[in-house]
């Protein structure tokens, strides 16, 4: 099975390993991610005021390109791209006036025909977590994982519709299929501080510290995420957290595709763990997952 795939800017740079591992795993799982040609940025922010149309012209072009290929599904891995594309599609399907304005503006014919899928959703709804469990070669037994959703994968629920807002479970089901144990922690849908990290260190460390402390107190060995910005805030901000909270001890923060790759027995050397600020290898070796 071949799925049209939109990687997005960050998956070519900072979050290359989210992308690499996702593509490699797809081969093992029997489907192919077919990257759209000449894609542009999704805009990274969904415009919230009714008369701001230019920000939706980018994502609408991406969706119209998918339709023009003759496809009716589009897969993304990044929470931000998923959020922007999914919400733009919601407008294209339900708001006739805005759809007419935007499609006239970009001179394309698009009515929301494409279904935007997050990779996790593809695993759940198209492949099935039971099939995934059967394809796991190396179960991640004994690994306690905090599944961190953040905001963009879930909210607003009416437009995104991936899972429940207060207590989603898709990530935990995924982790169980890999043979690891998800921990329940109350901050799993809390915001990481998002782009405010760029200019307010105190905001970024406060939000990240709350989330990581909550995960650790629930017994997690590591945290997983689908979002490049959350991964930055939770992983790369840990040295700053340690400066202001001396009792805090480091915890690795991985992309979910990196764990998926380990469970499918892809070589750890190719999974880019050296790019994680908090090195997960000592933990993975201790658990017998990586030799």
């Amino acid at each position, binding site marked *: 099975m071949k799925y049209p795939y939109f990687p997005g*800017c*960050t998956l*070519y*740079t*900072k979050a*290359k390993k989210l992308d690499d591992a996702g593509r490699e795993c797809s081969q093992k799982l029997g489907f192919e991610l077919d990257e759209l040609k*000449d*894609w*542009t*940025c999704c*805009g*990274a*922010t969904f*415009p*919230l*005021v*009714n*008369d*701001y*149309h*230019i920000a939706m*012209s*980018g994502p609408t*072009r991406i969706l119209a390109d998918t339709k023009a290929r003759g496809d009716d599904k589009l897969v993304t891995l990044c929470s931000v791209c998923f959020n922007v594309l999914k919400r733009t599609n919601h407008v294209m399907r339900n708001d006739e006036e805005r759809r007419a304005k935007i499609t006239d*503006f*970009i001179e394309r014919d698009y009515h929301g025909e494409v279904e935007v899928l997050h990779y996790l959703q593809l695993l759940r709804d198209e492949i099935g977590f039971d099939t995934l469990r059967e394809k796991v070669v190396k179960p991640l037994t004994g690994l306690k994982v905090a599944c961190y959703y953040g*905001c963009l994968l879930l*909210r*607003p*629920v009416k437009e995104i519709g991936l899972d429940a*807002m*207060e207590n989603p479970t898709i990530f935990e089901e995924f982790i169980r299929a890999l043979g690891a144990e998800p921990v329940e922690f109350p901050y799993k*849908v*809390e*915001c990481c*501080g*998002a*782009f*405010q990290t*760029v*200019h*307010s*260190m105190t*905001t970024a460390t*406060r*939000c990240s510290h709350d989330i990581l402390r909550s995960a650790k107190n629930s017994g997690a060995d590591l945290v997983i995420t689908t979002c490049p910005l959350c991964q930055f805030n939770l992983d*790369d901000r840990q040295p700053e957290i340690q400066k202001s909270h001396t009792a805090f001890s480091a915890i690795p923060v991985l992309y979910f595709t990196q764990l998926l790759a380990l469970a499918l027995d892809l070589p750890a050397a190719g999974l880019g763990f*050296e*790019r994680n*600020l908090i090195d997960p290898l000592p933990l993975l070796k201790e658990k017998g997952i990586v030799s």
Partner: protein
Amino acid sequence: MSENLLDKVTSESGQAIALCYQCRKCSAGCPMVEEFDFPPNMVMRMVQLGMKDELLKSKAIWMCVSCETCGSRCPNEIRIAPVMDALRAQCLNEGITPADPVTVALHTSFIESIKTFGRVHEATMLMTYKWKSKNFTSDLDVGLKLFLKGKIPIMPKKSKNMAKIKEIFQEAGK
């Protein structure tokens, strides 16, 4: 006092702001409330009362990251993120100096990167941001670490659709 603020923001955000009855569920769950000068429930009341000056000069409208937690929990299904966006737009349209110009600098640097490359290139975007915000020293160590770990490539990857992107920005600017 501005009598039109409630109508204007209601129409631009598409939110039934008049329904807010101050249960404060939004402020209880807001991850950014510590950085706000007015908590979200107060922003809503100020819109109802037409306190335009105070709102457009507030820090709250710029510190909101649109995480949509408040909107997901509101018993009257009012989403505050679009309300904040409408207030931000009004602040810029009226030429008022934003209480937090640094956030504006970040957003405009991002847009410029897309105008130039069609995609986001972190290195040039962050350099533009540093220049605009005059905030030269913060995060240099983190930036260096990211660079050394190969997470920030030096050369941008340009979209092949640049002509179309230029056209869109030109049309939008009219």
